[in-house]
């Protein structure tokens, strides 16, 4: 396992009781503000000492109450904080080299020039942190963490304080990080888009507890995530054909090359159900599916879990329709998905 966390304790007013394990290249800690996500990162980094539990990362025991509690400097994690926390009295170059300085020469696995190039920091090296924009600060913070040659990279909401264009810029750099460095990443976020785009394993947290641990594919916050491959572009109509386990999907103009893997989020409210293959409807995506389960409440709408040749898709329909169509586990149905529902925002590059 890349990372095993079993901890209990307090973080301020919050009672923490967290247990998860992950082998993923990117593990997302996902949940609303105040769920304890940053506290978990602090516990992994050694800035917060839980009362009980055990933390193992890359087969090194960081914490095993009450005997083992490695100090932060001995854990070799690269922590990019939400607020950057760059040292204001050093320029960017000195900030980047700070962690590297404390690493024995033999353990310095990162090349300075390569990291500077990866995060496009070359023109910033002699600047002071106060003269950097929010996005630049985040990039320097990530670069500084990376240059400490960490076993594990912790990113705490690196996009939280940024505007939309900056967000997609940093996301792009984090994707390069994931694909080019091979350092496992723990990514804290409360944004579905970021998690879908970056993560492989999602740890959902609420009020200091883990609610669910699982792959990003499948169910996620009122929708499903499906891994697809670009099959072709239909330029005349501005559409992209995506192949996936359950067949073919049409999406509006996806910015990716043929053959590239992309993740697609299908929101539950954009999926309708029919008992037979309908004709004369505007939906381009009509997929044969089997009902896996019906998660009914007492309200008007119900989430129906569908198995589309192995891929899971979620449909949100009215309880009335479920009753009228006789939808129940095992029943064969057709899922109708509006192709426009798969827009660029919900596409992540895998």
């Amino acid at each position, binding site marked *: 396992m890349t990372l095993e966390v079993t901890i209990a304790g307090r973080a301020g007013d919050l009672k923490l009781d967290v247990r998860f394990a992950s082998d993923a290249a990117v593990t997302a800690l996902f949940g609303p503000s105040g769920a304890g996500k940053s506290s978990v990162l602090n516990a992994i*980094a*050694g*800035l917060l000492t839980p009362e009980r539990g055990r933390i193992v990362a890359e087969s090194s025991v960081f914490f095993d109450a009450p005997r083992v509690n490695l*100090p*932060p*400097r001995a*854990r*070799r*994690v*690269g*922590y990019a*904080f939400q*607020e950057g*926390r760059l*040292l*204001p*009295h050093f320029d960017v170059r000195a900030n980047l080299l*700070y*962690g590297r*300085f*404390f*690493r024995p020469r033999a353990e310095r696995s990162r090349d300075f020039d390569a990291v500077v190039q990866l995060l496009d920091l070359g023109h910033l090296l002699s600047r*002071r*942190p*106060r003269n950097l924009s929010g996005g630049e600060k985040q990039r320097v913070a990530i670069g*500084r*963490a990376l240059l*400490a040659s960490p076993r594990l990279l912790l990113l705490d909401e690196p996009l939280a304080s940024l505007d939309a264009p900056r967000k997609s810029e940093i996301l792009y750099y984090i994707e390069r990080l994931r694909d080019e460095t091979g350092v496992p990443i723990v990514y804290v976020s409360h944004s579905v888009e970021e998690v879908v785009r970056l993560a492989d394993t999602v740890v959902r947290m609420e009020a200091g507890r883990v609610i669910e641990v699982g792959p990003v594919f499948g169910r996620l916050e009122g929708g499903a995530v499906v891994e697809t491959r670009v099959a072709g572009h239909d330029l005349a109509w501005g559409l992209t054909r995506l192949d996936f386990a359950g067949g073919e999907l049409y999406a509006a103009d996806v910015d990716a090359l043929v053959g590239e893997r992309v993740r697609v989020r299908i929101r539950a409210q954009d999926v309708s159900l029919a008992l037979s293959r309908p004709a004369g409807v505007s939906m381009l995506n009509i997929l044969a599916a089997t009902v896996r389960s019906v998660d009914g409440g007492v309200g008007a709408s119900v989430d129906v879990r569908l198995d589309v040749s192995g891929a899971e898709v979620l449909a949100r329909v009215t309880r009335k329709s479920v009753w009228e169509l006789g939808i129940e586990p095992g029943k064969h149905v057709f899922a109708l998905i509006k192709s426009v529902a798969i827009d660029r925002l919900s596409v992540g590059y895998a």
Partner: protein
Amino acid sequence: MSAAELDIVLLSLKVAFWAMLGSLPVALALAFCLARREFPGKALVDGVINLPLVLPPVVTGYLLLLTFGHNGAIGAFLDRHLGITFAFRWTGAALAAAVMGLPLAVRAMRQAIEVIDRRLEEAAATLGASPPWIFLTVSLPLAVPGILNGLLLAFARSLGEFGATITFVSSIPGETQTLPLAIYNFTQVPGGDAAALRLCVLSIALSLGSLVLSEWLARAARRRVHA
């Protein structure tokens, strides 16, 4: 400025400089302990450091005479074993000035240390820095404006030190007679008014100069450190 006046000014600067330098490590250590540590008797330590601010200076001087004088417990020991003499020497004047300036230095440094963003030290720790390295590369540089400010306050205070000095080391021309003591001396002899006034002007110039320098240094240091 006559040669005699120049000697007085140089002696005053020498006493104030060594008082400032000598109190630096003590003040810095005290400031860090008071800002960062909780220990029993902390309020008492804080109070004792600040005593010279509120005690009559003559009391401080007399206590120094009792402990650091020829027959004082510490004074006799230092004299016999290390060859350091405070009684009736310029070194004694520097010691008196240092003790009187200490509360100002500690206060300024402590404030500077208390406002350091601890999260920056945490960041340094995750990057592999041990506590001594964090102190040297993060805490100390960030506290530099406050440390400079404290030092210059102590320096300026030392230039004006009178009561404790005259009680501890007396007013010996060329050895312990700093500017304020010399001024006082001239006011006590008939016809010394003109000389006293000339020294007063020098004193004002010196104090003003050190305050301006202090402000300028502090501003330069703040510019370097703050975002």
